[in-house]
């Protein structure tokens, strides 16, 4: 227990990596979904992960907040090594925000309550303070006027922006995005990407699984290409899009950019 509480958060000037993934291996039964993943993310870095469906990209980022359990290798988030201890996992989750493909807002409570819930129950903030923080972030994703509505009354793009605000309310050190625009109509993709770009400019550490290559070109520090559970290529966006080295990457890029 003392070990858990004693783990330090990032002090200014510390250049310790925000996320360290070392030889991560994961199986679903006998199926080897993640194979020897090594990845280090420093504070403020923006990473875009792409790859064909079933390549393990979602599974990988879901391991970072233990929505998926891994069998081999290690994950260290903000200096806290991941174990199977529930307290430890919850400590890591408090520092890691996540945005899902299908938003996963809580449909039975209002937008405002969605944003307050974890502040009140996890961070133990008084309600008034939690609501203030929630309204701040709802303002930032430009949806404050919908605060009293229920998620079911909003459009997909609005719901996803609320989901981003909900995650930000916990003031996380890292944000994970799991295909945040894949379930949206084309007209709504932009409003969500705009919020994500703004967030990137503010220096948030971000890992985004996405097929929005425009987004990758504008904000990513590194683009990671995954296939068959492994990292095939890892490069800055200009290099990644102009001179992809592996044949598999070239094929993938030609398929998603070639129309």
């Amino acid at each position, binding site marked *: 227990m003392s070990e858990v509480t004693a783990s330090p958060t990032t002090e200014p000037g510390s250049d310790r990596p925000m996320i360290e993934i070392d030889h991560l291996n994961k199986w679903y039964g006998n199926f080897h979904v993640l194979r020897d993943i090594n990845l280090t993310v420093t504070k403020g870095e923006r990473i875009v992960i792409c790859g064909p469906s079933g390549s393990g990209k979602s599974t990988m980022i879901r391991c970072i907040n233990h929505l998926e359990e891994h069998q081999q290798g290690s994950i260290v988030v903000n200096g806290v090594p991941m174990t199977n201890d529930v307290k430890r996992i919850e400590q890591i989750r408090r520092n890691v925000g996540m945005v899902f493909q299908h938003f996963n807002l809580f449909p039975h409570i209002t937008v405002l309550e969605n944003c307050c819930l974890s502040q009140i129950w*996890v961070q133990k903030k008084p309600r008034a303070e939690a609501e203030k923080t929630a309204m701040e972030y709802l303002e930032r994703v430009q949806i404050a006027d919908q605060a009293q509505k229920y998620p079911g009354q909003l459009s997909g793009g609005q719901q996803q922006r609320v989901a981003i605000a909900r995650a930000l309310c916990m003031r996380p050190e890292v944000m994970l995005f799991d295909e945040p625009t894949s379930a949206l109509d084309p007209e709504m993709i932009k409003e969500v990407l705009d919020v994500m770009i703004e967030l990137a400019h503010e220096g948030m550490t971000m890992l985004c699984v996405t097929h929005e290559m425009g987004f990758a070109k504008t904000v990513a520090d590194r683009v990671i290409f995954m296939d068959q559970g492994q990292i095939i290529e890892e490069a800055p966006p200009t290099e990644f899009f102009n001179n992809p080295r592996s044949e598999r990457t070239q094929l993938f890029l030609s398929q998603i950019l070639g129309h």
Partner: protein
Amino acid sequence: MTDSTFRTEMIEAREAPDQSRGVIGWFRANLFNGPINSIISIVVILLLARLVWPFLEWAVIDADWIGTTRDACTGEGACWVFISARFESIVYGFYPEAARWRVDIVFALLAILVAWLAIPKMPRKKWVALFTLIGFPIIAFVLLVGGMFGLQHVPTRAWGGLMLTLTIAVVGIVGSLPLGIILALGRRSKMPFVKGVCVIFIEFWRGVPLITVLFMASVMLPLFVPGNIDFDKLVRALIGIMFFWSAYMAEVIRSGLQAIGKGQNEAGQALGLGYWQRTGLIILPQALKMVIPGIVNTFIALFKDTSLVLIIGLFDMLAIIRAGLTDSNWLGFSTEGYVFAAAVYWVFCFSMSRYSQYIERRLNTGHKR
């Protein structure tokens, strides 16, 4: 040749065409929109008239209402004097007359609390709910059982009538819901021991008929328990009824839990909420709302099945009415007795049904999944 077309002005939204053309329009559209439907409608209306009218004649128009003895029953129709003459015992059973005010207080308190919780505008719901679950049972126990604070002790043998029916129903409903929730959660647990215990409990109680449970509770149990421990017969029946219905409740609630997408739990996890927080704040509110019809269905079944306790010698409302039929002064009024009993059960069950529909509408937050 294809011309390209384009629109310079947008079309304004218009009102929907009027489809309801008064009462006659409704009848024409729904009952008489064709020769076959017209014939079916007429036949059904005639049949209903043939059935309903004689019943009304018997129950209302030709009925005798006023009087105290059998001599008042002169008309062709029903003689409700049978009910009014025995009304006290139908409500209180064999509860001593001098102490019946205690039952009245409990009834009134229960009615006030239920109304308070059921009407949305009433303030301080949380405290009233807490009082209903903790304070009220203690007060009701003290008042009904007595034997303390100078109140005369009334053994449960003397309980009966509607009072006993309501006692069993309320205890059964209040007990089986939380127990059912715990069993449903336990059955979905990843811990093999917890899961195993819940599965065995549910499958055992669901697999035996309620009558068997009641017989076991009243006849068999005392054989296994040392003679000096005297379990009250009513308490044994209550525990049996609670366990039996909690197994049903658990399966109803489990179907609700199953319907909640995995994403809800994951979103809670990602926000750092613990198991009980996710369950209590996210999963259960949605799951319970979804299975309100099933829960109320179980409540209604429970309410009606309280009448089974008559086979172990507890005199609930139906048993009291049946006992009244054997009274030599009142032979031959069984129809009145059973119609009255049915009406009372129906009023309670129908109220529950309507209230559940109202709650469903009120809790609807417009989400599809």
